[in-house]
């Protein structure tokens, strides 16, 4: 059974790159271009993993994350933030909002797989 991953990013290029990597590792991928659309996608079905950008129109990643955790608790889904925002205080903000891991863009397959292994979504 493939694992469901929701890729949330306003860049179609990033979503495409993430999809390619994730599908290669057995995920079925859904996409959302902002936080509001991502919340709708979660309402339809709870994904195993959310790969989450920070800066997006309509609803940004932090607001989505706060909403997600407030509605569904902190245990699921696993959320990996994937963003260009690499300042220490920004990362801490993401963790406080409920992110499990953090990938700084630009990323590659090795880094993403490494991070997904750290959070136990992929096996070592």
């Amino acid at each position, binding site marked *: 059974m493939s694992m469901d991953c929701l890729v949330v990013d306003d860049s179609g290029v990033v979503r495409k790159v993430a999809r390619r990597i994730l599908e290669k590792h057995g995920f079925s991928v859904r996409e959302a271009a902002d936080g509001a659309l991502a919340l709708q996608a979660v309402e339809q079905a709870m994904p195993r993993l959310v790969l989450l950008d920070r800066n997006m129109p309509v609803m940004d990643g932090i607001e989505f994350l706060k909403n997600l955790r407030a509605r569904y608790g902190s245990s699921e889904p696993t959320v990996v933030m994937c963003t260009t925002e*690499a300042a220490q205080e920004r*990362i801490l903000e993401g*963790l406080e909002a409920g992110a499990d*891991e953090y*990938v*700084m863009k630009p990323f590659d397959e090795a*880094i993403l797989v490494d991070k997904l292994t750290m959070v136990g979504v992929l096996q070592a």
Partner: protein
Amino acid sequence: MSNATFQFIAGIVKQRSGGVLGPDQAYMLDTRLAPLLKRENLASLDALALKLRGPASDKLAQEVAELLTTNESHFFRDGKPFDHLKELLPALHKARAPGLPIRIWSAACSTGQEAYSIAILIADAQDLDPSMKARRFEIIGTDLTRAVLDRAKEGIFTQFEVQRGLPVRALMKHFKQIEGRWQASERLRGFTRFEQANLLQDVARFGRFDVVFCRNVLIYFDLPTKARVLNGIAAQMAPDGALYLGAAETALGITDRVEPLLGQRAVYRPVAARMARSA
């Protein structure tokens, strides 16, 4: 590049770092030595070989050996040895007399990711068990290459490097961001010391070790050299110490001075430990 040039340069690497360059790695000479050729104003690798055969070429030969010695490193590489060490640290702390330091060797430490991964485990173990704070921990990182040691001493890593193997919470706890790069905390750096050393030469000067990481190093050596390195390490280990080799490496059939720890992959202990226990 002529075959004679390849053999000659591979010989320099073998002699100085113990590393074995196979014919399929000939491309490495082109890619890694290109900047050196440019700097030395040499037209080809054959011209470099000619210069290396000439007088006063010792420094250049050392540089060539360093450039062709593989440095690949990321935090908590392979995971399992660190899981094992996490359990071992409190046990060693209990087994050692107060005041006796616990000493860990990161052999072929490259830019220090392994040494700092160990330092993170120590710091976290101390936070869990404050009695471990009174204990002195020493991590000695050694490498053949000066340039990587300078980087290891600074403990500064790029954005890309800290993403390889390092959980973000460990990054937040143990590193400080400086102009887009990340420096290991003073606490982590306080555990570490980095020195240039050749595994094939005198490493006895570093003293006795409780734990040795010598991972993904042996793969570059031929069989007699592997045995020499392993025997040298075994001679310096505490009887109840642990030696971690790379996941794809083994000491079996190479030396009887260390033996695998039952149920563990690539974890070894000195053989004298078993003999001492059964006596």
